[in-house]
Structures are given as structure tokens and as C-alpha cells.
């Protein structure tokens, strides 16, 4: 199982994928908002989403696991 971690502290602005969804490398999985800027978080590799650990409006820290892959 692979994890996708947050690259910075911020608030989750949108969650762009669903559990069970097949995503490709480079696809935007989530958009974080930090310091008045929207930052897209992209999947590093292709895979199927196993869990989504952060939801719209949640505050996440750098290094927090945002989604896991099967």
C-alpha cells in the first residue's frame, strides 16, 4: 500500500477523487489551501484509491497522509 502525503500545512479545499477510483500519475487528488493559495496535490503514481483520510475543510499538517492506495 502506498500513501500520498501532504506537501504542506493547509486546509483541504476540495477532494477530487473517491474511494475505489483508479487514478493516473499526475492526476489531481486534492486541492489544499494554504496562505491564500490553492495548491493541487497530485498522485505520484497510478493506482486505485483505498482510503481518503482528509475531507473538505480539514486542517492537515505537512507529512499527514491524505489518501492511501491499494
Amino acid at each position, binding site marked *: 500500500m502506498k500513501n500520498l502525503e501532504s*506537501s*504542506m*500545512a*493547509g*486546509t483541504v479545499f476540495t477532494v477530487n477523487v473517491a474511494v475505489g477510483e483508479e487514478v493516473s500519475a499526475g492526476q489531481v487528488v486534492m486541492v489544499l489551501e*494554504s*496562505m*491564500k*493559495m490553492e*495548491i493541487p496535490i497530485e498522485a505520484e503514481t497510478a493506482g486505485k484509491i483505498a482510503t481518503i483520510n482528509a475531507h473538505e475543510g480539514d486542517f492537515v499538517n505537512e507529512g499527514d497522509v491524505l489518501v492511501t492506495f491499494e
Partner: protein
Amino acid sequence: MKKVLIANRGEIARRIIKTCKRLNIETVAIFSEADKDLPYVKEADYAFLIGPSQVQQSYLKADDIIALAKREKVDAIHPGYGFLSENAEFARKAEAEGITFIGPKPETMEKMGDKIESRITMINANVPVVPGTEEGLATVEDAILAASSIGYPIMLKASAGGGGIGMIRCDDETTLVKHFESIKTRAKSYFGSDVVFLEKFIDSSRHIEVQIFGDKHGNIVHLFERNCSVQRRNQKVIEEAPSPNFPQEAREKLWEAAVNAAKAVDYINAGTVEFIVDHNHQFYFLEMNTRLQVEHPITEAITGFDLVEWQLKVAAGEELPVKDQSSIKSHGHAIEFRIYAEDPKTFFPSPGTIASQSWETEEDIRIDSGYEKGDKVTPFYDPMISKVIIHGENRKLAIESAQKVFSSAKIEGVKTNIPLFQQFLKDESFTSGEYSTSVLGEWMQRQREEVSK
């Protein structure tokens, strides 16, 4: 005026406190949980927690702030910039409680906050505006028709928008059709109104603005212009006063237009009239900001005035400290650099703790900083951590001092754009003074090409 509440945070709160202290005015600061240890909280005479870190639950809580102001028996509220500074409703509520709002009349804020209405006001006052539509566009068909008579490229803009948000450049009908509904939707969710309009896109233009000031006795003066064309993501990075590459004749016309714009709305307190200026020095009204601007220190540097002091005096009902335009003189050249906690290459934010910061400061160098060593830069607010303002006898000397300051400047713990300034300040595109709003983007593009060669 004996006691003022500052409805803001960081460097601007600190800057307002400084002038209040000098004038023996007591200050009341408000802070969110994230900001509890920042310098401005300690420097204010009184400080109160207003809520959690998110702005909606703290600095934007208008009613809570007014209730606190009432309880603390302040005479006035200084809104700073951003947050509630251009919120007419907030100003009205404060005044209804007998608290002076340090800024223009709420009606002026409303009028200038609506971009279509401000365009019409300026047309009636003979201030040139960018060619465009004077009515909101209801359907995409109306937009196509209007765009073809204005001529592409055009800017599609939200009437209630501003600050670089809620607008997009459209080069042809296809892109206009593509973005029409999404800009309308965005305008509705960001600004509460889905009214959009069109403006002609002015190529290789500069952003030059004029500081104006009015009092309650009908006096209005300008305090010269600022060139704010060095931008990233439609946000200013470097500002200069006076504007380089701008003939005296054009400058005088611009000041006059700004004063006419201010007179058209009986402007009171500090305001800024923003213009787009093309390569022939032809200018067009863009918008009016009804507050103190981030970059006001460069105007202070060249005029020798304290604009916050002017604001406090005008709000107290006094006349402008200098109301005779011909007695207002400009000396030398000033440049402001905004220090952002961000990656200098990607511009991505970089929150963190400031482990150390060191500046080699000399005379004529002013640093307005919201943070000191050990302070935390949190992800909840704007990434600007400080401003470096340099004043020199002329532009060349000011740039030389800036190069010196940045060659030894060091901030550790967060990434900043200091490395960008170290390089960009040496580039001819900046030093020549002949630049437009695309200068920083183009320079970065060249840097990337150099690296890949």
C-alpha cells in the same frame, strides 16, 4: 482620539501601533489563536483573543470586533488592509455604535467596490477608463456581441471582484464562451454577485497608482504615484515611487485624473486610484482602493509624511496636515520589496518557524516585519512576512542599496523570495526601469531556459 482598536494582524497592526504610540493614542489589538505570540500582540496596550485561527472565525467576525470595541470604549477602529477594510457594512455598524471607522464613507466604499458602478462614476468625471461594457452581461450571447465590438483580447471580470481575483483573459470567442459561466459561478461564490463585464486587454501595460487623501472639509490632495508592475500571480512583489520610465507630462496628467476621481466621490481619508498605463503612457482607470495600501511606505519615504498619522487626524475631523498641493514635495526614490514565505521558484507557500533573520540595515532602510526570530508563520494568512523599504537620492542609488541589503539578508526556517530579489535586482529588465507587468514572469522563464541549456 485617545484609544484605537486595530482590526488586523501582523506587520500592518504593528505599523499602526507604532504611530499611535508616537501620538499617545492607546491601542487595542485583536488576535487569533495562531497569532497569540506575534510581536504586535505584545506591543499593543491591550490585546484580546478574537477566535480560532481561520479568518472567518477571527479577523472577519465583524460583530464580535465591534462588540469588543464597544466594551473597551475605543474611539475608533483602524481596519488596516484586507479583512474588513473595504467592508461598508462593518463601517456602518461601527459608526452606528458611535465608533469612528478610520476610512472613507461606507457609500464611497460600496460605490468603488462595484467595478461597473465605479467605471460609470469615472466616465462621468471625465477620467479615462479601459474600453469595455457599462452594464452587466446576462448571457454569453451578450458577451460575444460586446466583445466583438470592443475587440479581442478582452478581460472577463467580476463586477464585485478585485485584487486580481475573479478575472480571466480571453483571446477569442471560443475562450470567452468557455469561461463565461465559470467566472459567473466563481464571482457568485467569492463575492456574492454573479455580475460580470468586459474590458479591453491592454498589452504590455504597467500598473501605476496614485495615493490620494481627502478630509471632511473638502480638501483633496495626491501624494504622487507608485509603479507596482513587478508582480507574480497578479500580486505585487516590488513597488517604486516615483514610477521609472514615465515622463513628467504624463505623471501630472495622471495625478490630476486621480484627484478628479477622488473628487467625484467626495473622497475622505486615504485612498488609491489604480490605473493601467500602456507603452505610450496613455492611462486608463482600473479601480479605486478605499483603504491604506500595503505599499504606502514608499509614499511616506518620498514625501516624509506618516500616512497613518494623516488617517487618524482626518478621522478625528481635522483638516489634512498639508492641504496645499504645491507644498507637497517628493524627494529621491523609494522601492519596497515584499518578503513572502514561499518557494522563490514555484511561489508555493512555505509556512514554518522563523529560526533566524538578519538584515544589514543602514540609514534610509526601513523594515516593517510582522514576525521576529522564533515566531511561527502559519498557513492561515497571507504569505507576506515583511516589507523592506529603501530610500535613495535617486533610482540608481536605491537599487544599489537594495542589492547590498539583499546580498547579506538571511531568513532561516521558512523559504522566502530573498534569493529571487538577489538575482532579479541585477537584471537589466528591472534596472532599466522600462518594464511592464509581465517582467517577472518573463524573467523567470529566461532563468529556466538558462538552466536547461
